[in-house]
């Protein structure tokens, strides 16, 4: 019984999302993550399986399909990994409820570094055969396992969904501890997380934000409009003046598209400029991002295409016929910002230095899922 058989369930929804991702009709890391959760919930609710491995194979199949459709939306893969992690946990705890508590292996630092957070089901699965409540591969009633487990799994998926929905609030709940009165903050692009973070801090503090306009998408314009309408004193500056004004800036706050395992990040184009300028002026660089952006990838910065080069039309008008023929336009959407340039990540799971991002990743995902 190959897993392929099972992928037919929820196939339509998967294909639709894959097509949407491919056609860039779903963009933005949070939206992509949300859509992925919804599709996976559908897949799991329809899936037929008699042991946990089958279900995991189904989800991985779907995940692979979605990631292949759009490898640049990292949150899709992250969400799949996260759900796999949660499902394993739920399944193992469910199957060993009545089992006698196994002799747990001893926690050691070295083991932790090597394997990440220990998974309980390692020990639990073989022993669960004994339980009467949930039996894997029951020959009499193959669906009993799925029937018993599904409510728990749905709950696990719902947790992921809830986390995604509350991520902005949770990231910004400690905003007032990071921003002090009369500070000057510089930001770039229109990151929803940063926007919520700044607005939340504005309830307690009186400070100034300088927004770089973020050519050629000019998403900085929207950001400035949004912040100033929330009563924050806002300046909009061209990207070219980032270095010049950096000496007056107290803190640089960046959003992220994806946080890589080495502590670097993929962020809107111009972030590298801001981060480098900040380093030259020894200004702290703070990155606000939800946990779902943690991506277990190391080698992205070797990949030129990972910067997601968009169409040249925002840089060079199509009507400039003579130039279009002679000029090659490079219009990357993202920058890779290396970990040395970042001081701290503020996530919905607390604040972390870049050097400990790998640990967060190990906690959040299972190592087996790094390659879907």
């Amino acid at each position, binding site marked *: 019984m190959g897993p392929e058989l099972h992928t037919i369930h929820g196939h*339509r929804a998967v294909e639709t999302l894959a097509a949407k991702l*491919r056609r860039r009709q779903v963009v933005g890391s949070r939206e992509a993550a949300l859509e992925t959760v919804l599709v996976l919930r559908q897949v799991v609710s329809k899936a037929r399986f008699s042991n946990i491995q089958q279900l995991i194979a189904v989800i991985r199949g779907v995940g692979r399909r979605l990631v292949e459709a759009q490898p640049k939306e990292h949150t899709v893969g992250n969400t799949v990994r996260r759900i796999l992690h949660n499902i394993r946990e739920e399944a193992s705890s469910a199957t060993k409820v009545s089992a006698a508590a196994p002799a747990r292996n001893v926690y050691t630092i070295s083991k932790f570094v090597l394997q990440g957070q220990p998974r309980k089901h390692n020990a639990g699965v073989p022993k669960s055969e004994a339980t009467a409540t949930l039996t894997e591969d029951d020959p009499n009633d193959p669906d009993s396992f799925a029937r018993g487990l599904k409510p728990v799994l749905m709950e696990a998926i719902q947790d992921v969904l809830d986390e995604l929905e509350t991520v902005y609030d949770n990231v910004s709940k400690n905003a007032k501890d990071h921003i002090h009165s009369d500070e000057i903050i510089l930001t770039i692009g229109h990151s929803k997380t940063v926007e919520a973070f700044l607005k939340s801090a504005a309830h307690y503090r009186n400070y100034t934000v300088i927004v770089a306009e973020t050519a050629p998408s000019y998403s900085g314009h929207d950001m400035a409009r949004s912040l100033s309408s929330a009563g924050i004193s806002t300046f909009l500056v061209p990207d070219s003046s980032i270095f010049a004004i950096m000496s007056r800036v107290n803190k640089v706050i960046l959003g992220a598209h994806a946080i890589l395992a080495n502590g670097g990040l993929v962020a809107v184009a111009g972030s590298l400029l801001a981060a480098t300028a900040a380093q030259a002026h020894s200004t702290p660089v703070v990155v606000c991002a939800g946990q779902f952006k943690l991506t277990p990838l190391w080698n992205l910065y070797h990949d*030129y295409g990972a910067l997601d080069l968009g*169409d040249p039309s925002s840089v060079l008008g199509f009507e400039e016929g003579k130039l*279009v023929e002679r000029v*090659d336009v490079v219009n990357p959407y993202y920058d890779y910002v290396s970990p040395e340039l970042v001081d701290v990540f503020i996530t919905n799971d607390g604040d972390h230095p870049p050097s400990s991002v790998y640990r967060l990743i190990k906690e959040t995902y299972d190592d087996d899922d790094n390659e879907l």
Partner: protein
Amino acid sequence: MPPKSSSGKEKDIADEDEVLQAVILADSFNKRFKPLTVGKPRCLLPICNATLLDWTFESLALAGVQEIFVICRSYADQVKAAIRDSKWSKPSSGIKIVPIVTAKETFSPGDAMRDIYTHQIITSDFVLVTGDLVSNVRIDEVVRAHKERRRTNKDAIMTIVVKEAGAVHRTRSRGVSGVYVLDPNTSECLHYEPVLGYPPASRVTIPREILAEHPEVEIRNDFMDCSIDVCSVEVPSLFQDNFDYGDIRRDFVYGVLTSDLLMKNIYCYVAKDGYAARVADTRSYDAVSKDILSRWTFPLVPDNNHPGGHSYEHLRGNKYIAKDNSVSLSRTCKIGNNTLIGSHTTIAENATIHASVIGQRCTIGAGATLRDAYIFDDTEVGEGCFVGGSIVGSHVKLGKGVRVPNGCIIADGVVIGEGARLRNFERVSKKRGASSKAVADGSDGDDEDDEDSELEEIEAHQEDAATILGKDSNALVWPRGSPADDEDELDEREHYNNLRLMRIGDDASDLELSDAGSNTSSDSETESESSSIHALSRTSSMTSVSGPSLSHSDLSAQTSAIHSLSSAAAETEFRSEVAQSLERAFDEGHSVENAAVELKTLRMASNVPLRRVREAVVGAIVDRVPLVPGDASAQRTEIAKMVRRWGPLIDKIGGVDPVETIEALQYHCAAAGPRQGLFAQMLVALYQQDLVDEDDIRAWHKSPAAKGEGVKPGSPLAEGLQKCWEVGAKLLEQLSEESEEESEEEEAPKATVKAAAKEEGESDSEESEDDSVRSEDSAPSKPAPSSALRPPASSTSLNAPPAKSTSQPVQPSVPAKAAPAPAAAPTPPPAPASAAAMPAQSASTSVPKTVPRVAKAESSEESSEDDDDDESGEDEDEAGP
């Protein structure tokens, strides 16, 4: 028309979840890709390693189209098979694709539309595209805008998607394009004029009503036609009703917009974001490939959403290499920018590849050089080959050291021997021996038969093939074509010279693309681009208000000749009808008004240009004059009688253009042997009847048509024309002598002068600058018919220039060079015409808001012209490019 749901409420609900339908015209109805399209439909040619049809499907899928009808004609089996095997026919694609095979007798998009009508497949507004579209335009937004418009205006039947592209753009077709006249506020397309690259068009004709009705119009020559049309259900039925509509743009759009009866509106959607272009010819194949590689089509780019389902890795410099690690690049090969390399392709040492697309499973030999080359799948390029600016089909074998220079097209399966050196623009296909079997397998419809006979013909001319193709070649060299070949070609879009503008690698720099007739014109003309359009200088019949550079001319150039061709049949019919009608009028003594009404109706019915009517009327009058040989004065009386009785009819048929009248008279007299002598007397009679004045004669005299240009020299017609022209010259001499005597009366108000026709000459003469230049600048070769429709109302104001402004000529709108020339200068300077030349890109011109009022004032011959004139003068200064 399919029935609509009955109640309004139901309909609203239906609108919500209506299935968006699209129709793909998968056949191109022309042969621009021959010989690549021997044995294969064009829509299955690959571009960037995915078939054109896949790109089209993807473009439509982006827009959320749910049901697609593919209209195929030639090689329908292959198209159907391709659709069946593609990812699109899987249920998960969410798109229902229905191939529809039309009859072999479908020869134009219009025929296909009629077919759609008979199939009754269209239930709501639909998207009409061609099968060679590459687009990322949000068509759903266009559809929304279209539906929105339909809610308030049921006559908005079509929305054309256009893209601003500038006058010179690699993706904009140089061969076939169009000029759009838009209302900038509503983006309604008020007029459309098809433009050919060759012969170059120098002018467009815009109906005067448009200028009268719209305070602001935009004339755009920089639009790229994306060939995406959102049509409402009645569009196919309109095609059904008008069986002569062939092309969607040239016939349908033009026809609908110029029709007096249909009263339908067409709108344009200027796509600001997004990219859309069609691969209509090999030149645009090159351009669109480059646009895809330089990511204009994002997110439809090889590394992201490749319609063929391949995945490519995007490397610095827009290099795309297939991702599955199957490409073997040697250490010393050079891969330049903007290159795409398909999977399982091997590139040997020291090969250089630049700005090229290479298919799957190809082998590029050591030291080969590819530049702007498009190589389809499974092709082998030998060692040391050179391929530049060419398209090489699949399964082709190029031997060692073969040189494929600019513009070559090598069809599938060709083998070219070692060391062969092709000439530029060589077209090569495989000999029929092997391929005819394949044809026999498939359906052997007319199309394949046609092709067979075509190939046979080519086989008959293979004297030099062996020397060109090298030994062991299995190929045929196609005839190279020449301008002389296209005499029998009916469609001038497919003429050799025009096709040259559409083929890959041909910059056509040797083609004479500037306006041949505009010798007098100055710098702005020569520096303007090949397809530039000149706004026309004022014609004598225009009142000063009719506006800035938008004035129009009756002598529209070649552009309108196009339509005369297509409606040639209708015209013959029309001519006989007019002859009969006039016969009746003369015999039964109808009043001039009644005869005029009858003629107008006839003209509407058969939709011919005004010029034809004028020619017919002038001709009929000349023919009715009883010949009195040997008695000049008796003859004169006869003519005077005739002209007095029927002359006014000439100006009552719907527009006034004395210059054209003289021209018609000249051509008629020159052709009608014995009546040639009547020309002079007729002209004098017309002059005395106030139907023409001196300036008109002068203008006529200067026009190339009057000198008989464009008529074969030596023919009797040309001689006749020449004689008439000389007669005219003499008359002019006399007139100018007379008018000099009376020049003191120059300042006299026009109205009083009117009675004494002879005095008019001088007072009007300043205006003649424009007239004469206009006519000099006008149609170089043939007496072009007019397609301008004039409101009869304006005819009254004709000879009534503002009282004050007699000494102050009304300038053409563009201020720059339009210096007032001295009155009645013998050779007027060319300046005004060229100044009126509109830069090719776009000229958005606002017609002063005062237009309607002024027009009224003038037509009722009030004397309030002073201020109006000033006002419009100011506005004219502001306007212009």
